[in-house]
């Protein structure tokens, strides 16, 4: 089936980040969003471990392991970077100073609940800063494949996995669509032209509502 690559989902999410926005990108796939900042806009990236306004990854061999992001990957400084300690870093998060946080998801429910930290009681649990981010940033968005690897919906009526946060997500960028969460409902904003509404609904665990026209989700090869 036609679907967006992770890079393309990240590209689409990047288009909604306004100039001058303060942004936190989750570990892994969400980090990709930084690559696709639209021309003429400058976002400032925050990492939980105490850097604001860091730059791209250094060339291999040029890493300084005191200069890493929350995913423990090496980054660089650029003019205007600031360092601070962990309590100040999470004051930024919890205090509502970040404009956008973009995270991955295991499940997102139609009421905005997010499950992205635990797949159940087995193994070693680990949470990091996700629970802080989802109740801190002004806007919490999710980027994700529309369905799990075995084809089950990730957009669901109620999360069955342990929650990261309650009623926190407002927009989901998936491999097939852009879906807003409004008034406890999924509202479809954009979908791939090649995917029918019925098909999309069949891959979604709760009703997709329409609120005006659904735009084509158009993303370049990236």
């Amino acid at each position, binding site marked *: 089936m036609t679907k967006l690559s992770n890079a393309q989902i990240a590209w689409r999410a990047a288009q909604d980040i306004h100039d001058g926005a303060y942004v936190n990108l989750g570990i892994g796939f969400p980090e990709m969003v930084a690559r696709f900042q639209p021309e003429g806009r400058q976002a400032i990236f925050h990492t939980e471990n105490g850097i604001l306004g860091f730059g791209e990854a250094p060339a291999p061999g040029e890493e300084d392991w005191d200069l890493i992001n929350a995913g423990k990957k090496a980054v660089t400084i650029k003019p205007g970077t600031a360092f601070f300690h962990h309590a100040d870093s999470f004051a930024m998060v919890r*205090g509502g100073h970040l404009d956008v946080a973009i995270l991955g998801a295991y499940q997102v429910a139609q009421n905005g609940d997010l499950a992205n930290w635990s797949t159940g009681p087995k193994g070693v649990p680990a949470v990091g800063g996700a629970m802080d981010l989802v109740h801190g940033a002004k806007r919490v968005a999710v980027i994700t494949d529309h369905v799990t690897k075995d084809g089950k919906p990730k957009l669901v009526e109620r999360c069955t996995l342990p929650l990261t946060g309650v009623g926190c997500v407002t927009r989901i960028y998936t491999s097939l669509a852009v879906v807003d969460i409004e008034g406890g409902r999924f509202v479809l904003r954009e979908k791939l032209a090649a995917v029918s509404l019925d098909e999309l609904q069949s891959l979604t665990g709760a009703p997709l509502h329409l609120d005006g026209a659904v735009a084509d989700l158009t993303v370049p090869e990236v």
Partner: protein
Amino acid sequence: MDKRIASLAAAVAGIPDGATVMIGGFGGSGAPIELIHALIDRYLATGSPKDLTVINNNAGNGHVGIAAMIEQGMVRKMICSFPRSADPRVFTERYLAGEIELELVPQGTLAERIRAGGAGIPAFYTPTGFGTDLAKGKPVADFDGRSYVQERWLKADFALIKAETGDTLGNLTYRMAARNFAPIMAMAAARTIAQVSRAVEPGGIDPEAVVTPGIFVDAIVAVADPAQEEDLNRANAHYPQVQA
């Protein structure tokens, strides 16, 4: 992104009647005199903003800065720890006349409430004030056998602060003890306006030396040789200047 604003007048233009305004400074150190006086200019020209709630450690000294705001009648309420100074007459007279409200807060509680406002902590417990008149009516709780008072965060619509160096992204440094409340007020206000003695491009401040990261600052306005409130008071200054 460039957070510079060209004039003091433009910097304070958006503050409406009834706003809650945190103003940096401890006595004269860190008092953003030029921003305050620009606000007074606007009030004298337009009648606005008035009915302000002002949060500062003190309540003005002499006839400049916050004292001048109070003297002009712009301030409805002060939230502070120590409304005394070398010359506190302006506040004292209004207060004793019942013309200005006072919320007295222990200094450390004031600082922590402001920091909590900036850090997204709606309430916290402190030993400070337990069993005193300033804790009356507040919830209390025991932790590990000791009694504490619950205090609420303090936020503001605007913060007016004075910094030493600011870059166009809003990163700030301060000068000595003029730092005091400015970094936490910058965190706790919906819009933070900093007057800076020196405005620089990004990279003009060592990333290790940044005290207030730019995320907490919305606008900077350059004031190259800022007045020192203490000096103004020692010269018996009035704002606006008394015409001869």
